[in-house]
């Protein structure tokens, strides 16, 4: 099972969770996070388009995963992130962590998400009836990295 995947195709979060869990003998805790496209402030979302930087994306995600594995003594960790055009209600990305103890599993997953958000080369564009708009990065996102 590939622990870092960047793909255009939709995936099944339950299937991914089970697949991940099957490979983590000895873990007492498994945490998963799934992000889903949803309606936005500016109007009804028709689709979310995600652009990425092939090559660098996998490289950045692998590095973030490696860092999390060591820092939180994870038994295993997984990242799946989609690109391309996603209708509302679809899973954009998912991370999962497995650890002997609960606290590390949560911290590990939050770390993956914080770094993935502003250190992995993805850019989101929202398409509504009004047109297309690139999602602006939040200064919060950068601030979130400081807690680690």
């Amino acid at each position, binding site marked *: 099972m590939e622990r870092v995947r960047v793909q255009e195709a939709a995936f099944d979060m339950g299937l991914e969770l089970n697949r991940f869990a099957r490979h983590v003998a000895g873990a007492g805790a498994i945490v998963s996070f799934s*992000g889903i496209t949803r309606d936005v402030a500016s109007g009804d979302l028709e689709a979310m388009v*995600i*652009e*990425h*930087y092939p*090559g*660098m994306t996998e*490289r*950045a995600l692998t590095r973030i995963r490696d860092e999390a594995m060591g820092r939180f003594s994870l038994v295993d960790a997984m990242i799946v*992130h989609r690109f391309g055009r996603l209708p509302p209600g679809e899973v*954009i*990305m998912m991370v999962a962590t497995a650890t002997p103890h609960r606290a590390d599993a949560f911290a590990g997953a939050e770390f993956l*998400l914080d770094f*993935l*958000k*502003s*250190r*992995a*080369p*993805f*850019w*989101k*564009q929202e398409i509504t009836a009004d047109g297309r708009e*690139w*999602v*602006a*990065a939040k200064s919060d*996102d*950068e601030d979130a990295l400081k807690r680690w």
Partner: protein
Amino acid sequence: MDLRYFAWLRERIGTGHEVIETEALTVRDLIEELKQQSEAHAFAFSDLGSIRAAVDQDLVEFDAPLTGAREVAFFPPMTGG
């Protein structure tokens, strides 16, 4: 040297990929050079605060050296997750 552009930077410049010859020593020098190249480039690079750069697929600061660099990419702050 291969240059890559993403998201609105790609749209402003009008292409996601170009190949250039350059003697620029740092990323910042390269940006200054690119701004001279066309109005589109000048517009794309007008606000450096909203631009990030990667050299050979590693995120870098603007004062990073370009020694031996094969691929430099420019893009807005990332918005994954």
